[in-house]
């Protein structure tokens, strides 16, 4: 069975049982979700043997961190994809040359979206597409490339043949616009 046909509730239940060290649940979770997560590692790492290594690490992490999944904040499959995607991105980041740190000061936003709102991803499919559609096509593609292919600012700058700082400016403006659209 694929993630497309496995109800979210069932995946959440399997993750919960993994947190209780249920081996049979881990196997079922693997059977239901590994094709999707392998798709994630494959697309980002773009190398089959690296993706095979990565998928093993990803499931070790899922077993170890199952108790950290909080139902309601993100859908269970989104959480699993995030674990796989973050692991693949960590690998990419580790093999990139050290770049200049962006001088950033992180302050607490006045009010973040509530968890209830954040949990509505399944009901709001297509909203991100709609909002990406409000950006200039290049910039929407750059955001998609960062998410789906794990492209860095450097890679995006060279793909779109713009200076690095221009790419950063583009992306940040795009993300701010995106947020305005998504929370409108």
């Amino acid at each position, binding site marked *: 069975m694929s993630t497309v046909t496995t109800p979210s509730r069932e995946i959440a239940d399997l993750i919960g049982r993994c947190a209780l060290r249920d081996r049979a649940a881990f196997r079922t979770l*693997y059977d239901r979700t590994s094709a999707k997560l392998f798709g994630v590692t494959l697309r980002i790492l773009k190398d089959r043997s690296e993706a095979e290594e990565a*998928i093993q690490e990803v499931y070790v992490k899922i077993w170890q961190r199952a108790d950290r999944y909080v139902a309601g904040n*993100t859908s269970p499959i989104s959480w699993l994809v995030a674990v796989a995607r973050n692991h693949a991105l960590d690998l990419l980041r580790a093999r990139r040359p050290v770049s200049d740190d*962006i001088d*950033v000061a992180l302050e607490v*936003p006045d009010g*973040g979206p509530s968890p209830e709102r954040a949990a509505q991803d399944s009901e709001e499919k297509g*909203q*991100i597409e709609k909002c990406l559609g409000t950006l200039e096509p290049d910039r929407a593609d750059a955001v998609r490339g960062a998410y789906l292919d794990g492209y860095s600012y450097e890679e995006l700058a060279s793909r779109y043949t713009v200076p690095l700082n221009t790419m950063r400016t583009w992306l*940040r403006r795009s993300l701010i616009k995106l947020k305005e659209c998504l929370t409108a």
Partner: protein
Amino acid sequence: MSTSDDIGDFGGRNALVAEYVLGLLSTSEHQRVGALIENDQSLRNERDFWISRFASLNDEFAETAVPAHLYPRIAARVFGEQPKASFWENLMLWRSIAAGALAVAVAAVGFNLIQPVPDANALATQLVAALQGDGSNVQFVALYDGEGNVRLTSLSGDAVPGSDYELWAIQGGNAPVSMGVIPISERSTVTLSPEVMAGWGAGSVLAISLEPQGGSPTGAPTGPIVATGTATQI
């Protein structure tokens, strides 16, 4: 503050969490921002907001079957080094596995072992147990001679360098009681301690765990349970 490139303005702050989620920050920034997010509820909400929103793009990750040979490796890594907590879970699972595959071996070895004792009364107090486990090749037959000794015969299993196999008795709802370290490749006899003897009988469970050399340092199983079996009247 006039350009939105300035990370200090309101929008910039919000873009930073999105940049974090997209993975656009350098390693050191990624770690720093990640730590800040972990410690702040509103930043965590912000992070979850972006994860959820971008998740709508997840359909574009094409499902691809994982080669079948990878799961056993994952299982070995995930289940290979289990903490003590896994003991009961393993036991509950394995207790339910019928000793079917071993039944023939039990009959043969058991019969062989008891031959010197043809006495019917002695037979009534003798017990036999087939010890095996899911995902492990360690198999033992245990025969209780009715006089305080358990004779163990190893049918299969490999010695693990730096580790020893330890035998446990589990009686009723009590914690496992160690019966000592046992050899893997030869017959051995274990004399029941008074503590084990007190609860001993048909239904007592024998379990074998893999422990650091010399046996469990804690007095309770610390390694994976590789075989279990229930003592049954012959």
